[in-house]
């Protein structure tokens, strides 16, 4: 295969890649500078917002159209010739979603040290991908993760379960992305949230429908560049302003020291109440660096574990390692992915620290009349509340605070409630940076949400068209019909998840956390034992997937949507406050209220939603129930049955050796 001509053609293709993306990055920077000039000459903010959103969308769509394909291996695995470095970048964009970009720094802002569970979980997982899973699946040579399950556990039933798990976790995940795009579009284009959700959907479909893995790969690289520039710019500027060193990761230690000092000051002047063992409610101040005030150690380490193992089980991530030219490149590519992801993740705590410092000094402790007008843009969306009311304008705020007995007229810590998903998007405004930076951040958030949504929708569409339609329903279907089926199904899946997003199931981070737990409970035991334990049998895998994934999904749905039934029939109790050990909600009292008792399925406002469970386990960590059960069931059921055929066992040996053709090729040719 590797003749002289094809290698040299490939070489020039890769050289060109570097040049193309170099020009692209330069063009993007020039575009931002151009808009900065426009702002200086007085072009209104709203126009700048439109420029950012539509220009970047147009670029992604152009790349998507230019690289579209109808050839099968290009459509499913980008022809298996994406170099490790670029695949790393594409995986970075695929990986970093609205949760990383928009949600994570916000959670770090709110949770302080406890939020670092997410940072750790979402980076450490790649160690598992590289050691246990990624390169072996590449050697196997599948198009999709259910492909592997079906082959290893012979038969379409395992494939079918694999598809269900894949669709279920990708669907949850994509809902969070659409919610994120809706949030950005509603703020920067001035639309109503419910409409903006569907507008975001159009943007996502535009990119994903067009051209399969090949188009998504090259688009994702472009999106990575936008999102990393957008994420780092504001904090580099802030670091420069405050400490004269443009490397925020080095300087934010001092910001944290200042936050700690300011926290003590707020408590001493009576502007905040400190979280203590006697009272640690939502309105109390929890020091930024003090651990385990928001999550119990069980939930903290549970999140780290679930996110790590979830990383190694998410089909849309594993799928990316099917596109590299070789097993070696797959391995290198995991390392590159983590490096690109690391760039954002080790900056996120800096983001949180800088914006927290700004909020503590420029908002809290200021006179009510000094509230700056940008706050009201978010207040109108219901995302910033002051004195218990949405901060829509100055008069509302003053009236709301006057209504509180003994209010001092300056903003206190407990008066100011900001939705965590707003922090990143509003930090440029909090710090008083030019609007062009806000627009840049919005474009970055959009790139993050779009790139992940593209990857997810592609994974769903591939599973439905390749695994269900082609492999199970109509094995003779021509390529064109398979791809058309994929696109039609894609459309319906996307509309359904937009409808779900419009109901605001939870914040972005929690929704994404659910997806990880579901993937982990369903896929991890079957994939890992499939590669590493020759004795694992078909019956074992089927029972294991069903049991692990089933219990996780049950725990999740029950505690989020049917907490009343969870308490009444399944022995769930209120989660506990990590510091005081008291129940978060008084379950008996809520259930005595007919309004909440009849609230089925539970709305977001229901005090029991997400607040009940077993063993004080947050429902984000439902994988912690599902995965061990999955392993146990596969182990027991496999030992009860007959061992897999000799032929299968030797194929599993084959997966572990990089040399030679992919296992699937040998089998089918």
């Amino acid at each position: 295969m590797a003749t002289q001509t094809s290698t040299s053609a490939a070489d020039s293709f890769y050289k060109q890649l570097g040049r193309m993306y170099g020009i692209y990055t330069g063009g993007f920077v020039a575009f931002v500078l151009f808009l900065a000039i426009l702002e200086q000459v007085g072009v209104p903010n709203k126009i700048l917002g439109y420029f950012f959103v539509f220009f970047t969308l147009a670029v992604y769509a152009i790349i998507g159209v230019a690289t579209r394909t109808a050839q099968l291996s290009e459509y499913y695995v980008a022809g298996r010739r994406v170099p490790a470095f670029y695949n790393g970048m594409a995986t970075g964009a695929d990986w970093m979603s609205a949760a990383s970009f928009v949600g994570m720094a916000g959670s770090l802002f709110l949770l302080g040290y406890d939020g670092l569970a997410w940072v750790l979980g979402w980076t450490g997982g790649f160690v598992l991908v590289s050691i246990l899973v990624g390169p072996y699946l590449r050697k196997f040579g599948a198009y999709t993760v259910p492909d592997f399950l079906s082959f290893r556990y012979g038969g379409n039933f395992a494939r079918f379960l694999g598809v269900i798990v894949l669709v279920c976790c990708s669907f949850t995940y994509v809902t969070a992305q659409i919610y994120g795009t809706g949030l950005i579009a509603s703020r920067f284009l001035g639309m109503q949230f419910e409409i903006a959700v569907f507008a975001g959907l159009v943007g996502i479909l535009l990119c994903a429908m067009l051209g399969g893995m090949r188009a998504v790969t090259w688009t994702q690289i472009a999106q990575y560049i936008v999102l990393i520039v957008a994420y780092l710019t504001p904090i580099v500027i802030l670091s420069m302003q405050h400490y004269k060193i443009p490397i925020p990761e080095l300087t934010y230690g001092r910001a944290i020291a200042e936050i700690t000092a300011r926290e003590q000051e707020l408590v001493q002047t009576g502007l905040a109440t400190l979280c203590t063992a006697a009272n640690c409610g939502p309105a109390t101040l929890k020091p930024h660096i003090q651990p385990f005030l928001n999550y119990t150690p069980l939930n903290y380490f549970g999140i780290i574990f679930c996110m790590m193992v979830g990383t190694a089980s998410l089909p849309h991530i594993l799928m990316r390692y099917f596109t590299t030219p070789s097993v070696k490149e797959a391995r290198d590519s995991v390392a590159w992915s983590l490096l690109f992801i690391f760039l954002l993740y080790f900056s996120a705590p800096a983001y949180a620290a800088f914006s927290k410092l700004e909020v503590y000094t420029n908002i809290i402790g200021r006179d009510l009349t000094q509230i700056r007008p940008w706050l009201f843009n978010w207040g109108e969306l219901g995302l910033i509340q002051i004195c218990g009311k949405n901060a829509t304008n100055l008069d509302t705020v003053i009236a709301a605070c006057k209504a509180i007995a003994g209010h001092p007229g300056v903003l206190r810590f407990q008066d100011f409630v900001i939705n965590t998903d707003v922090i990143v998007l509003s930090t440029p405004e909090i710090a008083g940076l030019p609007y062009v930076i806000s627009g840049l951040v919005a474009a970055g958030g959009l790139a993050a949400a779009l790139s992940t949504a593209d990857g997810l929708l592609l994974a769903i569409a591939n599973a439905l068209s390749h695994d269900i339609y082609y492999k199970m329903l109509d094995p003779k279907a021509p390529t064109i019909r398979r791809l058309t089926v994929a696109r039609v199904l894609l459309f319906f899946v996307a509309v359904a998840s937009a409808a779900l997003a419009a109901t605001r199931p939870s914040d972005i981070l929690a929704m994404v956390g659910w997806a990880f737990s579901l993937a982990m409970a369903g896929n991890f035991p079957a994939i890992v034992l499939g590669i590493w334990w020759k004795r694992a049998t078909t019956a074992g895998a089927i029972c294991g997937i069903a049991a692990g994934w089933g219990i996780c999904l049950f725990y999740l749905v029950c505690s989020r949507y049917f907490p009343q039934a969870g308490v009444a029939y399944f022995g769930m109790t209120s989660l506990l406050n990590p510091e005081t050990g008291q129940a978060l909600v008084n379950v008996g009292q809520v259930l005595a209220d007919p309004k909440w008792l009849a609230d089925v399925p539970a709305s977001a406002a229901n005090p029991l939603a997400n607040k009940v469970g077993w063993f004080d386990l947050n429902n984000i960590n439902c994988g912690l129930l599902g995965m061990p059960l999955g392993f146990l069931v596969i182990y027991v059921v496999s030992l009860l049955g007959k061992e897999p055929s000799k032929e299968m066992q030797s194929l599993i040996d084959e997966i572990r050796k990089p040399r030679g053709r992919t296992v699937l090729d040998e089998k089918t040719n």
Partner: protein
Amino acid sequence: MFMHLGVWVFFGYIIHMFVKQLNAFTVPILGFPLGFYMAAQGSLIVFVVMLFMFARQQNQIDRDHGYAEDQ
């Protein structure tokens, strides 16, 4: 491989169980409390370096045993 998984467990979990004790120390110059720093940056850097090392070592093992792919 098991050594790498061991390093992963240590920096992913064990070290963070002692965050309260580690916070008593401060990282020189940068000014972070050590426990916070390990979760925010230290462990992450270890993961990245470790993955590049793992890829190199594993590729070397494949070459030594004659299982490497043809270039």
